[in-house]
Structures are given as structure tokens and as C-alpha cells.
């Protein structure tokens, strides 16, 4: 790519101050076109897209992902419907499947936005909100309910007030953890991550301990809750989860340009007039809302966010969050819908969607990483 750029540069008069040197409208990330510029000459411009090839590749990947997600969407809706096409039974079944697709959409949206934003805020590309004790907390709440109240405990955790309570507990947990760690004398993101991992591990051990003393039938019921379960996701929460997720995601989108600066780290962000600490706290609050929505709907999805964010960085190859977010979401939707479709119609095991994500996703992730050699 560099050599190609060099070649193009050779023909470029590029003098500062000449009309060609100034791009007319820098939209930040849209390539500014010059109708009058002679062929083969690049205007000097800044933006999230570095070259024509880069832009084309982004569009091509988005189109491919769009096609794939459309394919899986139609597949999930129409494939293997036992009723004859057009009958009222057919449409009834299709309607039930739409709920599944909505859950997939919300989970992909939440996990993608939350993980990318979290990694931007913490300035790392390895640790995800899942690792920071989020899902351990969910598991501990669920296990605790069964441990203390038996199988009745599971039903105690269903219902709108319980959904909101559980989401609020997770957001509260995250906010207390973050504000304690970020405001006190620690003021260090690495210590926060370490404490998060330790708390996550501690909650995990607590859950494992409680699970050991459950009766087999209780344990069976609990296991069904703890697998990331798309097919049996709690669709009744959708009317509340969708607007909350859209609101949190919308705020992140609206602040995307600040996120670009936050990604440069504390010193650079502060130098550019962005209050890094305040901004990071706010991002992490939104992240915890998104994660609470996703986890309450389908349970833990440990690997999905990491996979989606990493692939989005690789394919988009840009700093711009307005380009990263849509790509991460589409990747998330494609992966989830594809995994659900395959598990349902090939292996008849739609409950265990996370299995295929972790297996295939892990392999894809390793291949991409080996080829590019960087995160």
C-alpha cells in the first residue's frame, strides 16, 4: 500500500496553500472529492479513510457482512418451517422467529458497542467488559437465587421488576467499582482492570461453590440459564431492552468524535481539551447499561464482544468510531445469526450458540491475527 501511495505522491504537486492542498469539506470521515482536480492527483486531506483502496475495502466488507446477515435472517425466518407457505400457521411461526431475530439484533448491538467503547475507554484491546466481572455477577445472582430458594428461585428472577432490578444491580456494581477505582488514589486503569478480574474470579468461585451443593435437578435448571441462550432468550423484556439499549448506544454514537480522542490515551486527550477522567467514567456507565441489557436477555456471551471488536478493528482499520461501531454491530449480527442458524438446523442444539461462537470465532480470530500480526 505504501508503494502505491508513493507512486501517487510522485505526481502530486502538493503545495501547501495551493487550492488543491485544501480539501473543500472535511466531513471527518467521508472522503472529500474534488471535481476539478486532475486525474491521478490526490488532494491533501485528513480523514478516517486513508486511501481509495481503504474506502473500497470498508464498503466491500460492509456489503459482504450485510449480505451474509440478510442471508441468515431469511434462513432463520423461512428455513424448515413445517407449515405450507402462505398459510396462517406459517406466518405465526415466522412471527415467533422474528422475536429471536430481535434478540440477536439487540445482543449484537449491545455487545459490539459496549466492547468497542470499553476498549477505547480503557485504552486496551484485550480486556472486555465480560472479563471485568460483569457476567460473573450475573452468574452469581442467578446461582444465588437457586441456591437459596431452590428451583422456585429461577421463577423469582423472572418478571419486569426483577429484570429492571437485575439490570440496575449490574449497573450499580459497575459504577461503584469504576468510580471507586478511577477517582481514588489509584487513578490507574491497569489497577482497575486487575481488581475487576480478581472480583470476577472471586464471584465465579463463589458461584461454582454454590453450584456444587445444588441438587442435580436444580443444577440442570440453573445450567439452562447460564448458557448464552438465544433460542430461549427472554423476549418479554424486549420492549424495555430495545429503547434502553438504543438510548445508550445513541449517546455513544453522538459522542463518537470524543471517543476518537479518548482512544489516544489520557495525556493526549487532556491536552486536546477532553476531560479524560470524566469522559471515561461516562463511557463506562453506558457500557455497563449495554452489558446489563445483553446479559439480562440471553445470559453470558463471554467471547462474542472480544471477537466482534477485534475483527472490526482488523477490517475497518481506522480510528473513527462512526466506522467501527456499524462494522462491529454487523459482524456481531452475522456471527450470532449464523451460529444460531447452524446450531438449529445442522446440529439441532440451538441452546448452545456460544459453543460455536467460541470454537469457530476463536479460529477465525487466530487466523486474522496471525495474518496481520497485530491487534
Amino acid at each position: 500500500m505504501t508503494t502505491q501511495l508513493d507512486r501517487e505522491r510522485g505526481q502530486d504537486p502538493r503545495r501547501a496553500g495551493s487550492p488543491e492542498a485544501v480539501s473543500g469539506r472535511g466531513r471527518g470521515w467521508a472522503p472529500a472529492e474534488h471535481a476539478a482536480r486532475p486525474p491521478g492527483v490526490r488532494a491533501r486531506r485528513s480523514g478516517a479513510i486513508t486511501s481509495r483502496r481503504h474506502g473500497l475495502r470498508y464498503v466491500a466488507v460492509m456489503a459482504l457482512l450485510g449480505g451474509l446477515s440478510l442471508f441468515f435472517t431469511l434462513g432463520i425466518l423461512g428455513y424448515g418451517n413445517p407449515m405450507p407457505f402462505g398459510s396462517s400457521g406459517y406466518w405465526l411461526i415466522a412471527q415467533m422467529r422474528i422475536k429471536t431475530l430481535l434478540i440477536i439484533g439487540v445482543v449484537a448491538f449491545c455487545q459490539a458497542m459496549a466492547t468497542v467503547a470499553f476498549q477505547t475507554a480503557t485504552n486496551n484491546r484485550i480486556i472486555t467488559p465480560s472479563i471485568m466481572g460483569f457476567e460473573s455477577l450475573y452468574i452469581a445472582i442467578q446461582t444465588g437465587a437457586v441456591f437459596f430458594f431452590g428451583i422456585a428461585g429461577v421463577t423469582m428472577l423472572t418478571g419486569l421488576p426483577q429484570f429492571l432490578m437485575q439490570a440496575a444491580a449490574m449497573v450499580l456494581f459497575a459504577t461503584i467499582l469504576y468510580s471507586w477505582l478511577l477517582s481514588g488514589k489509584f487513578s490507574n486503569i491497569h489497577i482497575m482492570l486487575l481488581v475487576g478480574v480478581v472480583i470476577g474470579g472471586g464471584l465465579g468461585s463463589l458461584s461454582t461453590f454454590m453450584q456444587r451443593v445444588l441438587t442435580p435437578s436444580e443444577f440442570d435448571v440453573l445450567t439452562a440459564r447460564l448458557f448464552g441462550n438465544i433460542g430461549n432468550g427472554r423476549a418479554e423484556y424486549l420492549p424495555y431492552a430495545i429503547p434502553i439499549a438504543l438510548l445508550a448506544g445513541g449517546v455513544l454514537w453522538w459522542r463518537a468524535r470524543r471517543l476518537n480522542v479518548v482512544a489516544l490515551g489520557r495525556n493526549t486527550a487532556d491536552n486536546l481539551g477532553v476531560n479524560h477522567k470524566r469522559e471515561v467514567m461516562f463511557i463506562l456507565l453506558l457500557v455497563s447499561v449495554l452489558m446489563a441489557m445483553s446479559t439480562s436477555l440471553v445470559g453470558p456471551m463471554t467471547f462474542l464482544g472480544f471477537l466482534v471488536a477485534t475483527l472490526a478493528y482488523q477490517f475497518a482499520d481506522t480510528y473513527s468510531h462512526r466506522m467501527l461501531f456499524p462494522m462491529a454491530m454487523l459482524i456481531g449480527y452475522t456471527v450470532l445469526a449464523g451460529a444460531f442458524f447452524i446450531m438449529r438446523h445442522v446440529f439441532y442444539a440451538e441452546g448452545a450458540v456460544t459453543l460455536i461462537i467460541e470454537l469457530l470465532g476463536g479460529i477465525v480470530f487466530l487466523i486474522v491475527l496471525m495474518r496481520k500480526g497485530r491487534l
Partner: protein
Amino acid sequence: MISLTEVTKNYGSKGSADSVQIGPMTVEIAAGGITALVGPNGAGKSTILTMIGRLLGVDSGRIEVAGHDVVNSPSKTIAKILSILRQENHFVTRLTVRQLVGFGRFPHSKGRLTAEDERHISEAIDFLDLAELENRYLDQLSGGQRQRAYVAMVLAQNTDYVLLDEPLNNLDMQHAVQMMQQLRRAADELGRTVLIVLHDINFAAHYSDQILAMKDGVVAEHGPPEQIMRDAVLSRVFNTEVTVIDGPHGPLAVYY
């Protein structure tokens, strides 16, 4: 003008044996030209610089840059008055030189680059001779080129005051001299006030207008290079036997 009044910063718990105090420091740094901050390790040079650049909070005292209270003014206001570059810069994001320099315009355009911003970016890039490299990614550059790109970013920010923390670190002779010449031009041609932490007293003496020598957290000497470049002064500041001789381009400190 940068003015510090009774500025202090404490490291470690107060009163304990290993606590270190920087300051109280009261000094006025005139606008225009290059002022070099020199002194032995641990004298508090970087601490003072980062406090002026509001990246580090002050424990007590007052810092004003061009009449603005750095500590209490909104960060985005200060970002149009002073820019600061620290020593270690590592970005998780992959950026081209031009994208990085473009971020320097954030205080003015909030990320929506206008034609005016693009002009500033191009000028900053040309000023540091980076035009050939502007579409390269930072990880494809040598250490010296990368350092120039960082400096181009703070110049594109177009602030009257530019604060640099040891920008010559890890640069070889050629690139260190080039960097100082470019900063000299930034002061002379663009009228920027440059405050710079330097380790090499000879670089400071040759390229700066004022030298602020620090020792044990307080100002040891402050004045033009000819006032600082004396055997007794340098030996006292640096705790080392220093002899100043007449070089072909001015006084030279010899200390080995």
C-alpha cells in the same frame, strides 16, 4: 506569560521519610522565544511542565498561562492556549501521520475538520518536513520521524504556548539538531512560546533564549544562557564538576 505562584506538589505521604516535595516554586516565564528547563534527575522539571500543562494537578499554589488560571479554567479553553507533549506516546489506535496531526485541530473543530483545519494540518506537516510521510502509518516510521509527527500535532493545535517534555529523547545527533532548529523556527517565525525540558545543557545553551535551572524541586537559576553557562553555576546545579569553554558556536559545558 506563564506565571507560577507558590506552586507545590507532594509525592508520597506527607511527613514520611520517603516523601518528596516539588516547590514551593514562584517564577515568571516571559512570552516569546524558547525557555529550557534543565536540572538533574528528580529536580521536578517534568512535574512542573506537566502541572503547567494541567495534566497533573497541583497540591497548592496558582498557575497562570496568558492570564488564564490553568487549574480552574475549562480544559477546552486551555487547549486553545497551550499544548503539551509528554515523553511517552503510544497509541492503541493505528494512525497515519496526517490523521495524528489532524487530531491537533480537535480543540478548534471538535473533530469536524474544515478547510481551515486542513490548511493548518498541511502547514504543520510541511513545517516539520513530513509531507513525504504524511500518509504513512506511525508504526512504519523511525523513532525520529515519529517524534516529529507528535510535535507536528501540537503545532497544528496552533496554541501560543507549546510545552515539550524531553522531545530529544532517543533522537540521534542529526535528528536532535533538526528538531531544535525546527523549534527555533517555530518560536521565531510562528511566534510560539516554547517551554522545553532538556537534558543536554549544551543544546539548551545554544538554542534557547532563557534557561530555567531547577534543583531539589525549586528554581536554582533563571536567566539567559550566558548567565547560566558558568563553571560555578553549572557545577552547583548538576552536582558535577563542569568546565565551560569557548566553543566555535558559543560556550560549551564539558563535564566528563
